[in-house]
């Protein structure tokens, strides 16, 4: 054990690798203190320390180690960090080592080495694919009580954090001419070629070090080592002003029209993010062209016990040796169907490791390679295969069948599998494209790519380094040229020769023990056989029945193995079996990253009314109304609950005067030559007779005849109107009006401007409203009843020349005005009115009191105008125009909508005056059994009426207006109430509207 790390890192090579041996990093795994180096992943550091057992599988709880060195890892999943930052199912192969890293194994109890549920492995003959569909059915009542809780507890892998995520997430947009996905030789070549042309280039790479396989192999480019070449390429890219390299960034999804999703792990290599830095950043990239250079993923062999810790992908073995300076074992074997295996053997020997055997499934082995292995004391088996493995919690020997079907056991503590590579075709398939089978390389390669996209290097099935450099450069040049830049690929530098010949072995002919296809989900070759037997032969059915490919790795190392076995069983061939659909994300992405800033209070914007500051200073309780925060009521000292307050506010308005912020209403200025024609077509009631200086209630229908919204329209000038819309519908009404203007009647000369934000809008209501406003409106404007009667409107000034609009409109039923002032003066106007009203006992009132008063007046609002009611239902049928065409005119006349049995608006009072009413109660006849058939309607709005000293309600009930005086039950079982009520007029206060006109 050389190198001085023998005590702490027994598998670390003496020298070499891209780790920084001067920067040791302490970390813990299951509480055990270990040391690695800067530049390690958690996986490489664990291997360096001789930790091979890392996790337990999903179903059988089999001991599992580290299979790969990349994002395809199915086995080595850990809980990273702890507490609120705990991250379950984190791939040790992707976790960058940092000082103090804390990792815990998962899905085991009581410990990783002694796991009680590993008994499941013994029961594996029972737990075959789909077994649960066939049992747990009797007795039915036990499913939720016993079987399912048991299954749920056993399932899952890691434990999610149990507290809100303390870190922040960022989102950002980026645009480029050429997006290069992958920072290996092909990606770097593409980026260089495109970047040199002046094109805007973004290179994304999921690794923290750029270079891809160049960092993992002992290769030469133009005389330099691969990693040196990569470092030089990166340096040049960084010097180009229009090139941006995003490392630690996974391009996870391809969306329509050149939109891509990527996630940058800004701070995951740190114990906690730096101050003001996000944990991760979600990039939305828009690219005119994309070069897919995401490389390839190596394929495991399918043989008995192929999941035992110590069995690894051959390419991963080389990564650990060459990049991290870690030997995969003391004495390793290589199981290969390709020349790659021999390269692995050579690298093991070069790193001073022991080589136990090389088993090549191909009958002939080049003599030079055989000599190399045998010289190192290794057994060489040609035309044979590994059938099984031995070992308790890790590999101790392999069982090898040679070309003559005789079996031998070869001791070893590491096994490298080389069964060829699959190009990463995931991303090019996200837009519903299917990859195609390439018989020459025994792999799926990109099929027809979406426009603007091309593949290069191993991702295109071009595996040699020379090909990677060449196809990358060409793809980069083409992409840049298509964006209008002059780019020519330079002749690729010379590389050392290599052979990538391979003949895959899809599964061991006679495996010993369970031969796994999908490691994490414990899907074995025998499960694929069972699926075949039971008719689940389509590849999607195979997946769903066995769960093959549904684990956190989404089958990156297993899909092809599964479908190759199905192909063999059906005799159809791999291309006609086909693949399942590749879906985003390429690797799992934190939910927090997608949400970014939008969580907690920032989930959605909060809109403040102009009087917000005053309200906050004056005990206001606010209520969320859509995005608005509206004053609900203004508590004063001595008031014990909200009802006290609301009653006081209502009584003050009815007796004296009150002030309410109604700015949340939508306000739309409508001008133009054809404005009247436009309004006539949009509104269901007539406007032709509305003179300048007058306002009128307005009803808008949807084209299907139901009420869309109501409001007022005031005529400020000959061709100038202003319309209000309800708070909830303001945006929708504006969109509807634009639709009418631009699409339905483009010939009309109409101009629409939203002035919702320009004007602070205040209701001043109550018998002393005029007295109060006289102290606000500038002298010279006569607002007497004679000069400014009910429904008058005018442009006035306030506060000594500030332009304002005044409307004599009432929602409360009292003498009332709505005053609009420029929003910047909203705060001032509010304070001024409160001061002006002091002598009259003014109160501020909020949406609660507003609602009480509108219910007392029987005005329909949101609960009644809910998209299911017609004007007739709301008692507004009489005001609709008879002699004009307007939106909704025809559809409102459909038979069911004019059925006299439809529930229509009425008022309700409790028979027992002390009884409390609740909205949402249904009406039943006094003696009716509760049933849907007996349902006569529903209470839509209720309030305690200070005027009547009892609860009142309005609602929709069959033939309501014909039934005043009749008693029904307001049935409210979800709140345990049933109240006898009397049907009455919906107008409870001042039915003759005398108060409005004084």
């Amino acid at each position, binding site marked *: 054990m050389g190198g001085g790390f023998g005590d702490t890192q027994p598998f670390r090579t003496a020298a070499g690798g891209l780790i920084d041996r001067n920067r040791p990093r302490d970390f813990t795994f299951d509480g055990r203190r270990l040391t690695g180096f800067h530049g390690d992943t958690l996986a490489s550091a664990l291997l360096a320390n001789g930790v091979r057992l890392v996790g337990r599988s999903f179903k059988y709880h089999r001991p599992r180690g580290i299979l790969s060195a990349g994002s395809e890892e199915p086995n080595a999943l850990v809980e990273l960090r702890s507490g609120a930052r705990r991250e379950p199912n984190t791939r040790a192969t992707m976790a960058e080592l940092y000082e103090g890293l804390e990792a815990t194994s998962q899905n085991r109890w009581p410990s990783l080495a002694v796991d009680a549920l590993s008994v499941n492995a013994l029961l594996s003959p029972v737990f075959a694919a789909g077994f649960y569909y066939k049992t747990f059915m009797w007795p039915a009542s036990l499913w939720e009580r016993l079987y399912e809780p048991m299954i749920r507890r056993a399932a899952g892998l890691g434990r999610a954090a149990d507290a809100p995520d303390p870190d922040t997430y960022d989102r950002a947009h980026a645009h480029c001419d050429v997006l290069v996905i992958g920072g290996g030789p092909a990606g770097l070549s593409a980026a260089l070629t495109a970047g040199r042309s002046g094109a805007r280039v973004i290179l994304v790479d999921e690794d923290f070090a750029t270079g891809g396989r160049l960092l993992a192999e002992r290769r030469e480019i133009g005389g330099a080592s691969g990693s040196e070449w990569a470092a030089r390429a990166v340096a040049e890219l960084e010097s180009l002003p229009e090139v941006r390299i995003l490392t630690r960034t996974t391009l996870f999804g391809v969306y329509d029209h050149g939109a891509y999703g990527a996630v940058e792990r800004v701070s995951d290599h740190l114990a906690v993010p730096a101050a003001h830095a996000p944990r991760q950043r979600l990039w939305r990239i828009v690219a005119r062209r994309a070069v897919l250079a995401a490389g390839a993923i190596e394929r495991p062999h399918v043989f008995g016990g192929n999941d035992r810790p110590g069995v690894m992908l051959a390419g991963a073995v080389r990564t650990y040796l060459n990049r991290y300076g870690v030997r995969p074992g003391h004495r390793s074997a290589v199981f290969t169907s390709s020349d790659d295996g021999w390269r692995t053997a050579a690298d093991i020997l070069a790193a001073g490791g022991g080589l136990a055997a090389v088993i090549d499934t191909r009958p002939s082995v080049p003599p030079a390679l055989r000599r190399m292995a045998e010289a190192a004391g290794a057994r060489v088996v040609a035309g044979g295969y590994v059938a099984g493995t031995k070992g308790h919690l890790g590999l101790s020997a392999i069982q090898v069948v040679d070309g003559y079907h005789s079996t031998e056991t070869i001791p070893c503590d590491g096994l490298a599998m080389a069964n060829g590579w699959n190009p990463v075709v995931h991303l090019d398939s996200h837009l519903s494209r299917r990859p195609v089978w390439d018989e020459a390389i025994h792999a799926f390669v990109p099929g027809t790519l979406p426009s603007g996209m091309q593949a290069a290097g191993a991702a295109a099935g071009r595996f040699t380094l020379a090909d990677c450099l060449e196809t990358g450069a060409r793809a980069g040049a083409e992409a840049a040229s298509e964006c209008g830049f002059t780019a020519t690929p330079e002749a690729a530098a010379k590389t050392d020769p290599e052979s990538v010949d391979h003949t895959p072995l899809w599964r061991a002919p006679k495996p010993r023990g369970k031969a796994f296809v999908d490691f994490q989900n414990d899907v074995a070759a025998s499960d694929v056989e069972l699926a075949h037997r039971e008719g689940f032969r389509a590849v999607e059915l195979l997946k769903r029945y066995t769960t093959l490919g549904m684990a956190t790795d989404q089958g990156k190392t297993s899909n092809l193995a599964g479908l190759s076995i199905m192909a063999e069983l059906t005799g159809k061939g791999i291309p006609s079996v086909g693949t399942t659909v590749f879906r985003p994300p390429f690797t799992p992405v*934190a939910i927090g990253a997608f949400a970014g800033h939008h969580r907690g209070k920032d989930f*959605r914007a909060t809109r403040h009314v102009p009087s917000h500051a005053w309200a906050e200073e004056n005990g206001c309780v606010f209520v969320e109304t859509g995005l608005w925060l509206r004053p609900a009521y203004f508590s004063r000292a001595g008031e014990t609950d909200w009802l006290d307050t609301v009653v006081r506010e209502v009584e003050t308005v009815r007796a004296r005067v009150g002030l309410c912020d109604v700015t949340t209403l939508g306000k739309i200025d409508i001008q133009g030559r054809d404005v009247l024609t436009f309004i006539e077509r949009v509104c269901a009631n007539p406007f032709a007779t509305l003179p300048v200086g007058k306002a009128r209630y307005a009803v808008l229908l949807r084209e299907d005849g139901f009420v869309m919204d109501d409001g007022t329209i005031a005529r400020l000038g000959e061709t100038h109107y202003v319309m209000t819309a309800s708070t909830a519908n303001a945006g929708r009404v504006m969109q509807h009006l634009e639709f009418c203007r631009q699409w339905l009647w483009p010939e009309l000369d109409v101009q629409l401007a939203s002035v919702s934000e320009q004007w602070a809008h205040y209701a001043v209501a109550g018998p002393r409203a005029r007295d109060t406003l006289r102290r606000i409106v500038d002298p010279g404007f006569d607002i007497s009843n004679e000069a400014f009667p009910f429904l008058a409107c005018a442009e006035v000034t306030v506060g000594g020349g500030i332009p304002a609009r005044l409307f004599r409109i009432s929602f409360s039923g009292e003498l009332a005005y709505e005053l609009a002032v420029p929003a910047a003066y909203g705060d001032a106007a509010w304070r001024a009115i409160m001061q002006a009203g002091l002598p009259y006992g003014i109160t501020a009132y909020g949406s609660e009191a507003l609602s009480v008063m509108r219910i007392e007046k029987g005005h329909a609002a949101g609960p009644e105008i809910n998209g299911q009611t017609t004007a007739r239902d709301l008692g507004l049928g009489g005001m609709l125009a008879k002699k004009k065409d307007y939106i909704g005119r025809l559809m409102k006349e459909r038979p069911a909508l004019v059925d006299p049995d439809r529930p229509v608006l009425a008022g309700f009072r409790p028979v027992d005056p002390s009884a409390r009413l609740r909205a949402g109660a249904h009406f039943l006849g006094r003696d009716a059994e509760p049933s849907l058939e007996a349902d006569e309607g529903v209470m839509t709005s209720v309030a305690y009426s200070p005027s009547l000293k009892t609860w009142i309600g309005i609602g929709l009930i069959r033939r309501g207006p014909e039934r005043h005086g009749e008693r029904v039950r307001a049935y409210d079982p979800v709140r345990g109430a049933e109240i006898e009520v009397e049907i009455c007029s919906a107008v409870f206060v001042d039915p003759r509207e005398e108060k409005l006109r004084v």
Partner: protein
Amino acid sequence: MRYSLFNVLGQALRGQRDWTPQWRDAAPQEAYDVVIVGGGGHGLATAYYLAKEHGLTNVAVLEKSHIGSGNVGRNTTIVRSNYGLPGNIPFYERSMKLWKGLEQDINYNAMVSQRGVLNLYHSDAQRDAYARRGNAMRLAGIDAELLDREGVRRLVPFIDFDNARFPVKGGLLQRRGGTVRHDAVAWGYARAASDRGVDIVQNCAVTGIRRENGRVTGVETSRGFIRAKKVALSVAGSSSLLAGMVDMRLPIESHVLQAFVSEGVKPLIDGVMTFGAGHFYVSQSDKGGLVFGGDIDGYNSYAQRGNLHTIEDVMEGGMALWPGLGRLRLLRHWGGIMDMSMDGSPIIDRTDIGGLYLNAGWCYGGFKATPAAGFCFAHLIARDEPHADASAYRLDRFATGHLIDEKGMGAQPNLH
């Protein structure tokens, strides 16, 4: 072979050798009494109930791909009957009752799991709207509970009660709601229908519908012409395309709805929860993945995939409701094609063409309806008159005004 613990154990000892295909992969016959187009959950359930309830077994289910390849295998597996309008209530309650005994009925464990469906509310107005709905359910004898904030806290203590933009004030709970293993529904019905003699014909795409004198005579398919006395369309997502073959235009648009699953983790949430102020709902599968979703993307699509805008919107809703989700990872997202109807409710009805029946317009609510849709559609096909529980799902309701618009959004499919 019957599915039972006994047989499962027996087969464990025999290397699982004796299991046979769960349904016959039939070749199409020349003629059938009934041809059902669409081998999804609804089509297979229809076939099963035609055989079981009406003794009709000369029936074929034609599926253009493999069974269960459409929405039955793409949804978020929720079952519930918490509707508020009389046209819907008895139908979905019929479905709940069929779900309850389904597994014993078809001898297939579809993991019908009634762990509750909770809809959160955030304002008094929303509370009253839920009370209205819950009371309607109670009038029909369906369980519904209106919870206050503390009641919700007891069920889901981990959601954001303190720092929420739209504070949770309570919820409407249907305890009998829950989830069902979606694929197993298709497989289980297929097996049960096949056992009763129904032909399940896969890889058989319908390319035309033949008519004579105003009656259907059969269907043209990729595997030849098949005569049929009755043809029943059950092809949600593609309803307009099939109807187009007989020059019918439907009050339906096809839209994409995305769904999401996280990596598997140990149990976090027991039932189903929907966030009334954001576009987000979530449950956890028996495998441990959080299954969640939100609104449809909002544009017509047959592409079975959506875009980033909706994905972000759904995740924002998730984080706003449940800030502990931040470090959990999204594993996979996909899309299904919804028959979005003009009032948000389905159609189970005859058409103007004799012998042609339509089951369509399920919006994103088709999965929970599977047993009742099959049951009622089979009734309609066999007897030529609507089943009482589905009598409101008429095609002419848009002309008569008998709309079933739960959300009150009107004739705009993407708003339902």
